[in-house]
């Protein structure tokens, strides 16, 4: 039997980037092929080519032995190819049924939507593949895990045989991810074939039948889950030996620097996102805040940094009340903030690197004398920091927007950490970065801790939380449901807490169990 899908020599240029460089890839019927690679390795580009969202410059796509051309998603769907996108493609105000039938509607009298027939087929599919979901529910009311099911049902409803899952676990808790793996197993058992895109090594080893590793737009290696190890895959991904563990000394916590008392915060739509949170962070320790995206971490950080008004509760930094403080007041109290979205909140992309490096101190001497900016001083300081923090930029007058993600993040880290600070608030500090940049940023954060700075690290990546934290607070629906010592925490334990299981119902992990932090 020929492979169900073959890609031959797919090449795709973007201005300045060769995203896919003569990629060959084979998918057999009934297997899960993992496509492993760092952000920017070209995985998503390749899949968008296959799904008809991009046109390749060269190369051919062969499905079931027949060469096909894919100009639009319609062609892909017709060839039996379906894709679950990293950002869900669901319309929140429509129901599950409406979302699933959209584009392939069943009709009565040739005009009217036949919601009943569609819902019946959805129930059938749910039953066959173990994907329970209420067809009448509105997408906006469903948790992320269920929304993902709807995405998968959408493909099955269209009779897709080749399923592409693009970073499907990014938004899931470890338990939800395991649930997804079961679904994937059941799908291939019933004859479907899956391409699973990820950059997480653990998942690849857990679920894949075969592994292709992509680096800089090329397939650099193939491996089987039985023979591969995490460190082997990591070095294939990065192209060099990688240190997977973060080394840090035992914490010596001092006085509390940040105290938060019964804080409540609303989001823009007036949903209560932070619901009575209290905690403190002491000098010389790292408090990690774990949680699935959207459980109030964003609003918590915005409130702490003065960017979002609080509804109730009080916050103190170094003894000063900052409940209603302006962002500048917070900065002046010695707080550094690495924001969650570096492009919209961390940098002014159209400004040069030099100006971005003084965004929080531009009005102070030596960068300003009265209202006059001291350009030579700004440039001198910029040159120094670029050197010190290893920012790879053509020059300090290059706009921040033209740097790579890792270097953009380094600019932010350089700005925030190169002044005397007492508290560092780091939100998703390494999201979307390559392994090298992650190593670098983690070591900088640990350096600050060693220097007696209090650190609040917010991340949705459990590996990052486990690697950095001394204590871990788990947020679920706006509350801190538990705070645990990092050395006692395991991924499974935290995962259950993140999924909303009450701490009373889980046996905490045994004391002294060593945790391997791998990312």
């Amino acid at each position: 039997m020929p492979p169900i899908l073959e890609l031959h020599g797919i090449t795709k240029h973007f201005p300045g980037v060769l995203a896919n460089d003569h990629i060959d890839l084979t998918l057999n019927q009934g297997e899960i092929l993992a496509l492993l690679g760092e952000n920017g390795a070209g995985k998503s580009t390749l899949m968008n080519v296959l799904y008809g969202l991009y046109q390749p410059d060269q190369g051919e796509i062969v499905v079931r032995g027949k060469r096909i051309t894919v100009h639009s998603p319609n062609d892909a769907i017709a060839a039996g190819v379906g894709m679950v996108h990293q950002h869900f493609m669901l319309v929140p105000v429509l129901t599950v049924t409406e979302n699933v039938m959209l584009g392939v509607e069943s009709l009565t009298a040739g005009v009217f939507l036949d919601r009943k027939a569609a819902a019946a087929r959805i129930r059938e599919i749910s039953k066959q593949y173990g994907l329970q979901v209420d067809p009448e529910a509105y997408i906006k009311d469903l948790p992320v895990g269920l929304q993902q099911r709807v995405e998968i049902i959408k493909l099955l409803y269209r009779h897709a045989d080749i399923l592409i899952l693009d970073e499907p676990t990014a938004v899931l808790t470890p338990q939800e991810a395991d649930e997804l793996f079961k679904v994937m197993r059941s799908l291939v058992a019933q004859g479907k074939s899956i391409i699973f895109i990820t950059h997480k090594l653990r998942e690849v080893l857990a679920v894949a039948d075969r592994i292709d590793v992509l680096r800089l737009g090329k397939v650099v290696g193939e491996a089987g889950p039985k023979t591969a190890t995490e460190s082997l895959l990591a070095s294939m991904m990065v192209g060099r030996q990688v240190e997977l563990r973060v080394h840090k000394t035992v914490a010596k916590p001092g006085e509390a620097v940040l105290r938060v008392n019964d804080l409540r915060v609303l989001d823009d739509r007036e949903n209560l996102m932070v619901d009575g949170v209290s905690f403190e962070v002491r000098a010389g320790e790292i408090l990690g805040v774990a949680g699935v995206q959207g459980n109030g971490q964003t609003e918590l950080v915005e409130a702490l940094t003065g960017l979002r008004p609080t509804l109730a509760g009080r916050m103190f930094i170094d003894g000063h009340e900052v409940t209603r403080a302006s962002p500048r007041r917070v900065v002046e109290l010695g707080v550094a903030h690495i924001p969650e979205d570096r492009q919209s909140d961390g940098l002014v992309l159209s400004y040069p690197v030099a100006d971005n490096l003084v965004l929080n101190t531009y009005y102070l001497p030596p960068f300003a004398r009265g209202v006059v900016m001291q350009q030579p001083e700004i440039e001198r300081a910029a040159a120094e920091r670029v050197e010190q923090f290893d920012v790879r930029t053509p020059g300090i007058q290059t706009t921040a927007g033209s740097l790579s993600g890792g270097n953009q993040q380094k600019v932010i880290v350089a700005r925030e950490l190169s002044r005397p600070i007492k508290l560092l608030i780091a939100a998703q500090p390494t999201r979307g970065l390559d392994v090298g940049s992650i190593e670098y940023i983690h070591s900088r954060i640990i350096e600050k801790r060693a220097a007696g700075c209090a650190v609040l690290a917010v991340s949705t990546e459990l590996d990052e939380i486990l690697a950095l934290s001394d204590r871990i607070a788990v947020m679920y629906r706006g509350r801190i449901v538990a705070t645990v010592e990092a050395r006692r925490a395991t991924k499974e334990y935290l995962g259950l807490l993140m999924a909303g299981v009450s701490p009373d119902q889980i046996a905490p992990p045994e004391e002294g169990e060593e945790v391997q932090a791998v990312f």
Partner: protein
Amino acid sequence: MATVTTTVSTRMLTEQAHQTRQRVFGVVFIVIALASYWLFARNVDGGLVSTFGLNQGNVPAAERLPDWEIPSYGTVTALVVVSAAVGAYQLARGFGRATSVMLGLVALFFVFSFLTWATRDQAINLAGMLKTMVSRAVPLTLGALSGILCERAGVVNIAIEGLMLSAAMMAALVGSVTHNLWIGLLAAMLTSALLALFHGVLSIKYKVDQIISGTVINIFAAGITSFISSKFLQVFQELNNAGTFQAYPIPVLSKIPFIGGIFFDSNIFTYGAYVLLIVVHVGLFYTRWGLRARAVGEHPRAADTLGINVFRTRYVNVVLGGLVAGFGGGYFTLGSVGRFDELMTAGRGFISLAAMIFGKWTPFGAAGSALIFGFAESLQGKLAILKVPIPSQFLLMAPYIATMIALAGVVGRAIPPAADGQPYEKQ
């Protein structure tokens, strides 16, 4: 039990918000009742009677309903008492989900108290007033439907004013030249659709800011119609003498006492609005076209990944909206006065957009809002006759002030389609 406590505390918080909302409404109801007493009941003599006519002018004597005569003071006082009681119950217990209905009721009582007061010792034709309300609401409804068609697919169309104005002129011009009202109406719709297509090309293909594109069309329409009007239509009267569609009473329905004359004895514009109202509603919510259009207006990328042509969907809806606006524009000339005057739409295109928003982008909601605005217009006309000592401009303002208050909090935030006004970029 972390999960349970979370939901409980969230519920408590929403509960608190509900209670505050409940109290605010209770107070508002009572304030309205007191205002009604202070303004209307207090200065009416006991013996005066308000007379409301219940017949249209053209009803034969044999079928006429007797006039409705009510004691002015007694009626207003009764309404004040009921409103206050509603407020008191709202404060004590709350009406829950029926609160908005109660708000509508109290507002209605207030308006009726005002009418009763204004009519004390006089008579007005209530049936005639309501008929005027309906006919004033027709162009507003059509404009709002046009807006709904565009915005549900994600294109903001503030050019409806300009579309209606151009359509009104073309209707008069072509209708006069051809001596055929139907051809005039067709010309109106095509003109409007063409301008809408222009708006579509600018905002869908060239991704121009949609407010700017719409404004450009409005200014262009105001200029070109005024020019043609002053150079030709006012000079050669035979070019501006199209006549109007006659009223056609619907058999049976128009014979219903009181109601029949108000709703079922009009010309094709009113009936067209009824039909379009239902067609747009059913189309949007029960057909493939509607589902796709709404998906495109909410999350175009999702629609695109499912093989739906976002651009084509938007073009289709914008042009359909243009046709509907053109039909509405025809009302101003072929549906009411038979001739074109400069800037005769007088901002009603914008008011239809207000009706659309107030109606939360739903056809029936928009039509309801259009009726409220239409009522205000017809009230203004009647009050001039009754010599009410309030400048008519203030009365005209009233429904919009009420709309602003309502939008600010009463009916809840009106949430537009998520991708409304955002040009779609293919990846």
